[in-house]
Structures are given as C-alpha cells and as structure tokens.
C-alpha cells in the first residue's frame, strides 16, 4: 500500500522489517532522522533490537563488527565525516567478511564544512571492500535494504554493503512509497544464518594477523567475492520482483537508450531529473538517453559496455572529485575503462558538489558539451569566485 512519508522514516521502517539484532549508530546530519526513529522503535518495544549508543562513528561501526562476528544481523547508518571516521573499521569489516548493512545519507566532506549533498563520502570508500548501491528515489532506497541483507549474508558472498542515497534530496523529502509488510519481507529475507561466529564453546579468532605468505590470498578472495556479488545482486533483484512486484534484475538501468547517440550516465537521485531532461531533449528531436548505475561496487563493467555500445558520446555526471586525476570524476573513469578501445568518447562532469542544485537545463548543457567534445571538467562554476 502506498503511503507518504519522509525518506529517512521510510528507511527506519525498512530497517525495522529487516529485524537486525543490533543497531549501533552515531547521529550526524542528514542521517539523524533514521537513527532517531530506530531509537524510538526500540524504546517503544516495536523492534526487538539492542540499540547501542556510542561515543563516535568509529565506535558505532566497531560495535557492529563485534556483534556481527558474534552472529547477529547488524545495522548502522552515517554520512560524510562520520563515514570517513569509520574508514579503518570499514576495511576490517570487509576483510573479516562480515555482512553488515549501512545506510549512507550522502553528504559532502569538509573542509570547508558542508552539510549538503554530494557523493564524495561513499566514493572515497570505493576500495574499502563494501558493495555500494545508489538509490534514485525513496522506493528504491527502502527496497535496497532488503536486497542488501540478502546479498551480504549469502554464504557465497559474505560482504558488507552500503545503501547510498542523496542526503536531504531523499532523506528529507516526503513522497509516496510502498512499505512492504513484515510477512513479505520475512519470506524474502530469512533470519540471519552466520557462516561462522564467535562462540565461547568453540573458540575461533577472526581478523587475525596474516604474514606475507597469506595476506595476498585474503585480498584475492575479497576481490573474488565482490566479483560474484554482481551476479548475487542480479539474482536478489530478480527474486525481489517475485516477492514484491518491483524488479531490480540489473546493476544498471537504461532509460530511452534505444538509438541514442549521446548517453548520460549517473547514480542516485539526480537520475530522476536526468530522466525528465531526457524526455525534453527527445521531444526536441535529440537522440539522448540515460544509463543509471544502481551499483558502483561491484562496477557493472560488461553491462555498461553493452548498454553504451553504438553511442557517439558519453557524459558521466560525477558528484565527486578526485583532485589531480585528469578525468576529474571517479565514476567517469570507470565508464571510460568499460569502453576502453571502443573509440567512444567518454567525458566526466563534476556537478552538484556540496548541494549545488542541478536543473534540467544543466543536464541539457552537459549533453551539449559532450556532443561538442568538451569534458573532464567542473560544470556550473561561479566564474566570479575563481
């Protein structure tokens, strides 16, 4: 049944239905409404979880690592500086193959301080060994939580994952959303069945010291698991359709890409604005389409190459900047890699950093730039400030 609610509250409803045994988080704008609501659920007896209040994001994720290792389904959420403070623990969680799910309300990184949206925080954790899904709207945001636990806890995967969504733009927006009932979620997402866990009667050690004779193989296995996660996300997305009637059977979604000469590539809530801009450009006779990436890690290289086959130019909208990298944006680099040796021109446009608004006319202007062979640049700078 469709209801209307704030994005953050919809996340809390989704997390409640995932039945985590332990929730540990530290409040940070714009994630705060999620964990406030979860704390209410626990205090009101609506949710049978231990809610651990801690002194920092570092402690929050550390508590999640311990609880997950002890065999509990665990949840956390953060943004921006909070995620960066967790960085060390993130690498440990994936290295220990703990299937933690964490919602990232994407926010810019300081300095200068910005509470507003871009995707620099999760992109900065690109190599942390967590899979990363990006939601376009509140419905995807809700659904990706169920899907992520199913993928993370798959014994063939055993990886932690981020559900990324644009801070404020989705977290603070009221819009209609279907919150599935508990029975439907339970049928899709069975109780957590840990592959191994800490047990005083059968002691094991986790996250141990690996000498040069062993370390590389651990990293190799982590990479192999992430490669397998692509198929697991597709399978979980197809099964999602059978249970909930909304299918996510691919890591990338093509919108009006048939016969497109120019392709826009983007992740997250900007995809909605791009779809409206594509419709306007199509109405004006321009052959433009969108490839929306649901997953940044694993990166769907083959799918991107297939979807973009035959286009003349590709414009990647990057809500991040890798200072000093010639291409500028991290997503652009991956798309150029996917199209290596095809001769297709791929450009990155750094856009919407620190909450700068992106309009339909900006999308059209980026398509113009790509068609004229200009890219790998910031878009929308205020020249008078430079």
């Amino acid at each position: 049944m469709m209801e209307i609610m704030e994005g953050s509250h919809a996340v809390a409803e989704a997390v409640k239905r995932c039945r985590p045994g332990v929730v540990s988080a530290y409040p940070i704008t714009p994630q705060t409404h999620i964990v406030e609501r979860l704390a209410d659920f626990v205090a009101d007896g609506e949710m049978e979880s231990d809610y651990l209040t801690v002194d920092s994001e570092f402690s929050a994720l550390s508590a999640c690592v311990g609880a997950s290792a002890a065999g509990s389904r665990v949840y956390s959420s953060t943004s921006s500086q909070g995620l960066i403070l967790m960085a060390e623990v993130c690498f440990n969680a994936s290295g220990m193959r703990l299937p933690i799910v964490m919602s990232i309300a994407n926010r810019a990184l300081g300095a200068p301080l910005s509470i507003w949206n871009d995707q620099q925080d999760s992109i900065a954790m690109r190599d942390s060994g967590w899979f990363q899904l990006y939601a376009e709207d509140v419905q995807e945001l809700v659904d990706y939580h169920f899907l992520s636990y199913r993928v993370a806890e798959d014994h063939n995967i055993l990886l932690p994952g981020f559900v990324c969504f644009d801070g404020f733009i989705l977290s603070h927006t009221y819009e209609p959303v279907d919150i599935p009932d508990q029975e439907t979620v339970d049928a899709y997402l069975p109780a957590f069945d840990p592959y191994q866990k800490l047990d005083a009667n059968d002691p094991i050690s986790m996250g141990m010291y690996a000498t040069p004779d062993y370390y590389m193989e651990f990293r190799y296995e982590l990479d192999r698991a992430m490669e397998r996660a692509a198929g697991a996300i597709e399978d979980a997305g197809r099964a999602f359709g059978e249970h909930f009637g909304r299918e996510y059977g691919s890591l990338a979604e093509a919108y009006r890409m048939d016969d497109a000469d120019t392709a826009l590539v983007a992740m997250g809530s900007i995809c909605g604005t791009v779809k409206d801009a594509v419709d306007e450009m199509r109405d004006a006779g321009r052959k433009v389409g969108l490839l929306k990436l649901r997953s940044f890690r694993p990166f769907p290289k083959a799918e991107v190459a297939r979807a973009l086959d035959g286009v003349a130019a590709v414009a990647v909208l990057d809500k991040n900047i890798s200072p000093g990298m010639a291409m500028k944006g991290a997503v652009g680099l991956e798309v150029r890699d996917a199209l290596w040796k095809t001769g297709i021109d791929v450009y990155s446009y750094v856009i919407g950093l620190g909450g700068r608004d992106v309009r339909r006319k900006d999308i059209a202007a980026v398509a113009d730039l790509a068609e004229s062979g200009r890219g790998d640049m910031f878009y929308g700078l205020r020249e008078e400030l430079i």
Partner: protein
Amino acid sequence: MRELRIHGRGGQGSVTAAELIAVAAFKSGVYSQAFPAFGVERRGAPVQAFVRFSDSKIRLRSQVYEPDYIIVQDSTLIKDVNVFAGLKEGSIAIINTEKGGDAFDVPPGVRVVTLDATRIALEVLGIPITNTSLMGAFAAATGEIEFPALEEALGERFSGPLAEKNIEAARRAFAAVGGGA
C-alpha cells in the same frame, strides 16, 4: 505538474507546511513531493520549502524556480527576498498580510490572495505561527488539496487540543479565502 514554493522565516513552520500540504495532496489522490531548501535553519532567517503535485510519479529533484503557487508567511520578507521570482501568467501568490492584494508588485497575470493569517493564528492558537492557517488558505485558493484531507493530515501530525486548534485555524483561513467548508 504544478509547483509550490513557500517563503518564511526559520521557526515559522514552512517545512512543516510543505510536508503537510504534500500529505494532504496525496490523501486527495495525486502524487506529491515536499522538500526543504536545505538551508542552515536559524530562527528568523529566510527559508524556503517546496511542494510538487502531479497526476503521475514525480522524478524531478531540483528546486522550484517557476512556481504555480507561492505562500509568503511573512510579508516583511518581500524587501529582502525576491519571493515573486519566476511567477508566471496564472500563478497564485498567497500572502500573509493586513494589506490588500494591490499593495504588492507582482508580475502580470499573477493572482494575489491576501489574508491576515497572523491575526487568525493569534486568535485561535494564541501564538503567531501562521503555517496551518496558510495551509487552509492554500486549499481554498488553489483547489490542489481537499479540506478534509488537510484536516486528516493535521490530525495525524498534531494531537489533542493542539490538533483541534490548528484545524480550526486552517478552517477559518479556508473560509476567509472563499472555500466552502
């Protein structure tokens, strides 16, 4: 798709107004979307919030630049903020003021609806919080939301006597702007 931009000052409940108008619109049977302008929310600082209404799913996420409707909670904002920016032929501007519509210099073809929402709020609520009154005025002036749906949205957000008073404030404003409740 129709778009509303709400102008107010921090503490006047502009974001709540946007949320409850979106809730009432959804209950009235359309798709709606409400979001704030994500400002640094200091009491008294100019703030904006937005609502979209559509018969189909709303995908657009940018802010509202060419609104079909504006609500101005505090007419003293008009000297500091161009609240009329982007208004077009047929747009409706709902302004909380003691003055008449002629006092405002709006673009051609814009209908100005004025009401003394501060007086209604002081009489009904005992405090000068005008957002719920202006929601009633919005319902009457635009027809985007049905009054019973607004009443339901207010009843869900507030409880007890506070809900009753806010519904009463909305009803008075609705009637003042010519809605038949």
